[in-house]
C-alpha cells in the first residue's frame, strides 16, 4: 500500500514539473544578487507558468558552489543550468568528462555567432562544440592608480613593463616602499598573468595555452624574470591582503599602482565613494594596450537536466540583448554582445565596452578562461615558490609539467 502511495506521489511530482519548473544554480549572492534577481524577473515575465528555483550557494568566486555542484553532478541530479566561468574551467572539468550538452545548435539558431566576438566563440569552443552562453564580460588587464598622488610624485602610468620598472625605481627613490600593491595568492597569479600577456603579447599568450609555446621557452622564461623584478616593487605583506584591502592602498595613496580586474571600479565608486577619473584612475596593464584579457560568467546545459526546454529558454534569455542589458549594468560588468545599449552603463563600463569592440580578445588564466581548475589551483603553489626563490627556471619547468598533466594544448 505504501509503495502505491509513493508511486502516486512520484507521478504527481513529475507532472508538476512538466507544468514548468527551472532550477538555476549560481554563486551570485550579496552584491551580485540583485543582478541575478533582475534576470529571473525577466524570465518570469516571459514564461509566467514556470516556477523558478534560485539555488544560490554563496562564497567568493564560487568555491563552495563548485563543491556542491560536483556532488550533484556525480550524484546524478544536475541543476537545469549552472553558472561557470566561461572557457576551460567548464571545458577542462565537465566537457572532457562528457557531461555537458553541445550548444552550437542554439548559437546557430539565435544568431549568436555574429553578435559575440569571434575570439570569444573560440574560447567557448572545444572538441567541435560550443559549451556555454556568456552573460557578461569582465576585463582583467586593468591598472588602477591614484591620479592626485601620481601628480605629486611626478610620474605617469607606464606603458610597458620595462617602463614600469623605471617608474618603480623613481617612486622608491621618493620613499614609496611598495609602488605596486598586491594581495593574496590569486591576485599574485593575476599579476603574473598580466606581466605575461604584457611581455608575450596577445598571440604569444594564446600560443601558450594552445600548447604551441612551451613554458620553458626562453620568451616565457624572460616573462618570469620580469615578473620577479616586478615583485620587487610590491608589498611584503601581500598574502594577508584581500583584493579590496590591496585596492584600499591606492585610495589612501600608500601605493601607486594596482593591477586588478574591472570589478575594482565598482568597489572604488560604490564602496569607497570615489569619482572615476579624479578619485581613481585606470589604464590597461603595461604592455597590454589593444588587448582585452577577458573572463566571463556563463551558463551551460548539463546532460540529464530535468527541465531541458525551460533551461534552453533561460539560455536564450541570457544571450539576448535585453537579458544582457538588464543584467550587466547592475552587476558592474559589460555585455558580451557587441550591440549592447551603452547609455545604460557607467563611465568606466563605457570605456571598457568601447575597448571590447576594437581590441584583441584573449582569455584570463586565473579566472578560468584558458586553463582548467586543476591547473590554476596548483599553479598557486608554483607562484608562491617563485615568490620565495625567484628561480625562473624551476618555476617554468614546474609550470610546464603541470600544463602537460592538466592536458593543456590537447
Amino acid at each position, binding site marked *: 500500500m505504501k509503495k502505491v502511495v509513493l508511486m502516486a506521489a512520484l507521478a504527481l511530482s513529475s507532472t508538476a514539473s512538466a507544468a514548468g519548473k527551472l532550477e538555476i544554480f549560481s554563486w551570485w549572492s550579496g552584491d551580485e544578487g540583485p543582478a541575478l534577481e533582475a534576470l529571473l524577473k525577466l524570465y518570469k515575465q516571459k514564461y509566467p507558468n514556470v516556477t523558478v528555483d534560485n539555488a544560490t550557494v554563496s562564497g567568493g568566486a564560487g568555491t563552495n558552489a563548485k563543491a556542491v555542484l560536483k556532488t550533484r553532478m556525480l550524484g546524478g541530479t544536475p541543476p537545469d543550468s549552472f553558472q561557470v566561468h566561461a572557457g576551460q574551467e567548464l571545458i577542462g572539468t565537465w566537457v572532457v568528462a562528457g557531461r555537458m550538452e553541445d550548444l552550437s545548435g542554439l548559437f546557430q539558431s539565435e544568431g549568436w555567432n555574429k553578435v559575440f566576438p569571434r575570439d570569444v566563440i573560440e574560447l567557448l569552443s572545444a572538441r567541435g562544440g560550443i559549451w556555454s552562453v556568456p552573460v557578461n564580460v569582465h576585463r582583467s588587464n586593468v591598472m588602477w592608480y591614484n591620479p592626485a598622488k601620481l601628480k605629486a610624485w611626478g610620474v605617469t602610468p607606464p606603458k610597458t613593463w620595462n617602463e614600469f620598472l623605471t617608474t618603480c625605481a623613481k617612486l622608491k627613490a621618493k620613499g614609496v616602499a611598495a609602488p605596486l600593491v598586491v594581495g593574496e595568492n590569486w591576485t599574485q597569479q593575476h599579476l603574473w598573468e598580466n606581466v605575461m600577456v604584457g611581455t608575450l603579447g596577445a598571440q604569444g599568450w594564446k600560443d601558450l595555452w594552445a600548447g604551441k609555446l612551451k613554458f620553458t621557452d626562453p620568451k616565457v622564461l624572460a616573462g618570469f624574470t620580469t615578473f620577479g623584478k616586478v615583485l620587487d616593487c610590491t608589498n611584503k*605583506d601581500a598574502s594577508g591582503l584581500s583584493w579590496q584591502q590591496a585596492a584600499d592602498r591606492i585610495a589612501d595613496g600608500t601605493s601607486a599602482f594596482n593591477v586588478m580586474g574591472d570589478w575594482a571600479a565598482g568597489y572604488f565608486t560604490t564602496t569607497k565613494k570615489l569619482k572615476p577619473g579624479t578619485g581613481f584612475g585606470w589604464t590597461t596593464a603595461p604592455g597590454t594596450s589593444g588587448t582585452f584579457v577577458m573572463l566571463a560568467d556563463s551558463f551551460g546545459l548539463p546532460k540529464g537536466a530535468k527541465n531541458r526546454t525551460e533551461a534552453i529558454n533561460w539560455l536564450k534569455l541570457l544571450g539576448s540583448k535585453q537579458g544582457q542589458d538588464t543584467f550587466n549594468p547592475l552587476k558592474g560588468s559589460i555585455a558580451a554582445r557587441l550591440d549592447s545599449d551603452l547609455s545604460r552603463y557607467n563611465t568606466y563600463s563605457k570605456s571598457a565596452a568601447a575597448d571590447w569592440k576594437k581590441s584583441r580578445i584573449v582569455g584570463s588564466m586565473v579566472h578560468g578562461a584558458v586553463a582548467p581548475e*586543476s591547473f590554476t589551483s596548483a599553479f598557486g603553489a608554483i607562484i608562491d615558490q617563485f615568490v620565495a626563490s625567484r628561480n625562473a627556471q624551476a618555476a617554468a619547468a614546474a609550470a610546464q609539467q603541470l600544463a602537460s598533466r592538466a592536458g593543456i594544448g590537447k
Partner: protein
Amino acid sequence: MKGLSRDRWWSVLVLLPSVLLLAVFVYGFIGRTIYVSLTDWGNDPAQALAATPIIRWVGLANYQDLFTGFLQVRFRQELVNTIFFTVFFILGCLGLGLGLALLLDRNPKGEGLWRTLFLFPMSLSFIVTGTIWRWMLQPQGGLNQFPTVFGLPPGSFGWLSSTDAIWQFDWNKLPLLTAVVVALVLVWLAVRALRAADRARAVISGLCAALLLGWALFVGPNVKILPAPELHGFNLALIGIIIAAVWQMSGYTMALYLAGLRGIPEELREAARVDGASEVGMYRHVVFPLLSPITLSAMIILGHISLKIFDLVYAMAGPDNTYTSVPALNMYLTSFRQNQFALGAAIGTILLILVAVVIVPYLRSAFRSEEGHA
C-alpha cells in the same frame, strides 16, 4: 548458538546496527580510500568526473609523487609545517596549561571565575577562533598597532603573511636525517636495556643502531631523491596560527592538569615537606611525576588535533597560502578543486598513518591498563 541467553541476544541485537555502520562508514571507507590512493583516478582530467571513469591500478606511484615529485613541493612543505606546528602547539598548550593550573591550584580569589575564563576559548569552534585572530593579526592593525598605545611605532611583523623561514634543511637530506634520528633512539634503547641488564635486547638495538649510522655515514649522503636541493623550514607566518591554536586549547590542558593536581593527596605533599623538601623540590619529585599520565593523554589528544587541523588554517590564512598550509587543506584542494581523487586519497592515507602513529600506542596502553584492572 543455543548457549546465548536472552540478555546476550538482546545485547547482540542492539549493538549490531552500530557495528555494521562502523564497519561500512569507518573501516569500509578507510579501505576504499586506501584503494583509491593506489589508483590513477583523476590524474587524467578527462576521466576524473566521467560517468564511468576508467581507473587503473598504479601501486605506490601517488605516494612516490608526493615525496619526490617535482610538482608536490607544497605537500612536502606542509609535512614540515605540520611537524613544527605540532611540536610548538603541544609545548605551548602543555606549558601554558600547566602554568595556569599551578596558579589556580593555589586557590586564588575568584577561582571559579578564572577557571571559566581560561576554559572559555575551548567552547568556540576553530573557525570562529581563526576569524577573530585573523582580525587581530592583520598586517596593518590589531597586534601590530598595540605598541602605539604606549606611544611607540607600530610593529611590522607579518603574523600571517610572512614568507620567511628559519631552520631550513634540504629535503634531499631527509633519509639521512631520519636514519640518524632513528639510530640515536636505538642507541638510547640499547643503553637503557644495558642498564636493565637485558643483554639480548641491548645487543640487537646496538647492532641496528650501528647499521643505520653506518648507512647514514657512507650511503646516505649520496642518496638524491630530488634533482635539485629543496629547502623546507619553519615558516614564520605559522607563529600566528600557533598562537591562536594555543589560545584555544590551553584552557583544556589547564583543566586536565588542575584535575590531576587536585587528585594528588595532601598527605603526599606534607610527607615531602616533613622530609625536608623545598617547594621546588616537592613539585619536581612529587607532583610532576604524578602528573605524567595526564601529560601523556593531553599530548595524544593535542597531537591528533594538530595533525588533522584544517579549519583554523583555512580561516586564518586562506586555502591558497602555501607558507602556512597543512596536509588536510591540500587533501581538500587536491580532491575537490583539482579533481585528483587518487592523489587526495594518498594524502588522506598519509594523514591517517600519522594520526595512527600518535593514537595507537596510547590505545594499546589504555587497553592494557584496563585489562590490568579487570
